[in-house]
């Protein structure tokens, strides 16, 4: 069994999105119950969530945006940049806690105290751009973690794999010019799903070095297509890139039971993906992997999916 850290804090539920919003605090409630019921909590190493230092958030977001976000919460404006991004007065602090928790996981990973980690955080991050909140996201958690790895821990090559069913426009744009961070996303085809980006011809804009790759999945497709494209696109690309640490933007909304998309990935399909990603991390990054929750909105299947995900991390 591996030493798997868990970033979780009750305070992540303080970010309230209002009635009927899919990105609800209940998602974390059911996830925790699932881990509890499977008796996994005692096996996980708890990682505290502390407010992230501003200088790390500023490696990704503009000071103007950070200030605007804080003000919007202080003034209880209800939303930031669009009606999708519902906020309450606690949202800003919660977002900082989420980032801080993930950075604590990075520290423990790089200090050798854990082998990998799962971060059950809210709000999600991969749609957040440098100066804009988008798609329920405010701070780009995974992007900040990648910058932290580069600057604080001097990691040469960071690989990001995003299997949330929506393209992580924020993460892709943030690392577009950086040949040392590889952004890979597999998601529903942008002509049929939010946010309408992530086409297969988007390869990154860095002189000669292509460190952006997108695989698109058509509505109605599932396990087979995911398998095919991950083998065809991701595996050879990371074989070339050889990441030293792997970060996952782990969204679970591609599941057939999740109605945020028309993709039909099964529970077994998710397990296959995670096992293959894990193997890839072991091969190039010494198993150093941190998985961060993004989307996934079906309260029915989330518990089982996260349980399976964490069991794979624990190597159970």
């Amino acid at each position, binding site marked *: 069994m591996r030493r798997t850290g868990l970033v979780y804090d009750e305070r992540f539920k303080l970010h309230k999105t209002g009635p*009927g*919003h*899919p990105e609800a605090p209940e998602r974390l409630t059911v996830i925790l119950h699932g881990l509890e019921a499977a008796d996994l909590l005692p096996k996980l190493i708890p990682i505290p969530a502390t407010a992230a230092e501003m200088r790390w958030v500023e490696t990704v977001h503009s000071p103007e945006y950070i200030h605007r976000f804080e003000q919007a919460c202080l003034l209880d404006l209800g939303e930031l940049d*669009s*009606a*999708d991004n519902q906020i309450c007065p606690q949202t800003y602090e919660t977002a900082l806690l989420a980032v801080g928790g993930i950075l604590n996981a990075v520290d423990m990973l790089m200090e050798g105290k854990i082998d990998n980690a799962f971060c059950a955080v809210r709000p999600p991050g991969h*749609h957040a751009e440098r100066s804009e909140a*988008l*798609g*329920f996201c405010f701070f780009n958690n995974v992007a900040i973690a990648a910058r932290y790895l580069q600057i604080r821990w001097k990691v040469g090559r960071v690989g990001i794999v995003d299997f949330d069913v*929506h393209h992580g*426009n924020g993460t892709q744009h943030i690392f577009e010019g950086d040949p040392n961070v590889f952004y890979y996303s597999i998601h529903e085809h942008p*002509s*049929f*799903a*939010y*946010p*309408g*980006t992530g086409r297969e011809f988007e390869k990154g804009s860095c002189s000669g070095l292509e460190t952006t790759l997108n695989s698109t999945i*058509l*509505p*109605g*497709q599932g396990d087979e297509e995911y398998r095919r494209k991950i083998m065809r696109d991701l595996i050879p690309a990371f074989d070339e890139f050889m990441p030293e640490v792997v970060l996952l933007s782990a969204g679970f909304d591609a599941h057939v039971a999740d*109605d*945020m998309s*028309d993709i039909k990935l099964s529970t077994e399909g998710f397990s296959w993906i995670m096992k293959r990603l894990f193997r890839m991390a072991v091969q190039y990054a010494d198993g150093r992997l941190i998985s961060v929750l993004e989307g996934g909105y079906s309260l029915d299947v989330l518990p089982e999916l996260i349980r399976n995900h964490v069991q794979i991390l624990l190597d159970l």
Partner: protein
Amino acid sequence: MFIDKSMTRDVLTVRPETGILAAQTLMAQNRIRHLPVVVEDDILVGIVTDRDIRSAMPASILSEAEKASEERRLAFMKVKDIMTANPVTVSPAQTLEDALLMMQNLKVGAFPVVDPEGKLKGIISMRDLTRAFVNVLGLQEPGALIGIVVENEQGQMKKIVDAITEQGVSFGSILVSRVWDEGKRAVFPYLLTSNISKVKNRLRELGFTLLDPMDWYLDQLPKR
């Protein structure tokens, strides 16, 4: 949606007396295929295209000697010898749709834009139109597309817009495909939200038929 807004203003031009080899170089270096031909005060007198230049080049089947003599002759040829005089033009006050339809009908790739005095103000090409319509379709904004089949009757659009607005969702754009099926058209709202499932459910509740891209895909699968 006026041509004035989308046209290219810094137009490269040539004179009627410009040598065609010089014109060819100008096109190649700037990766353009149309050069308006102007006289004093930027008055437009013609247009020369890369196709005109290619037609003037010696045929590759000629012998070396024949080619050499052709090339000497070419060195003296001027743009005015091969240009299209009095080309089809558009005015800055015309619209992008005008340009689009004209391009379709006349099978031409670009139009010089001139004012009522015949002075060149810009050029509008397929490239400019593509950029303008990508913008109009709102493809650069994050959003999600849905497709709705509606009867060809009055008031359908309003019902759709109201239903969507009720959900607090903003529109990026709406496209309508005028002929979809017998007596039906298809409406494609591009919505600036990630949460389209509640919009879709509401539309279904109201009795609208949503286009399911899965239907097309399932049709493509081999039948078992």
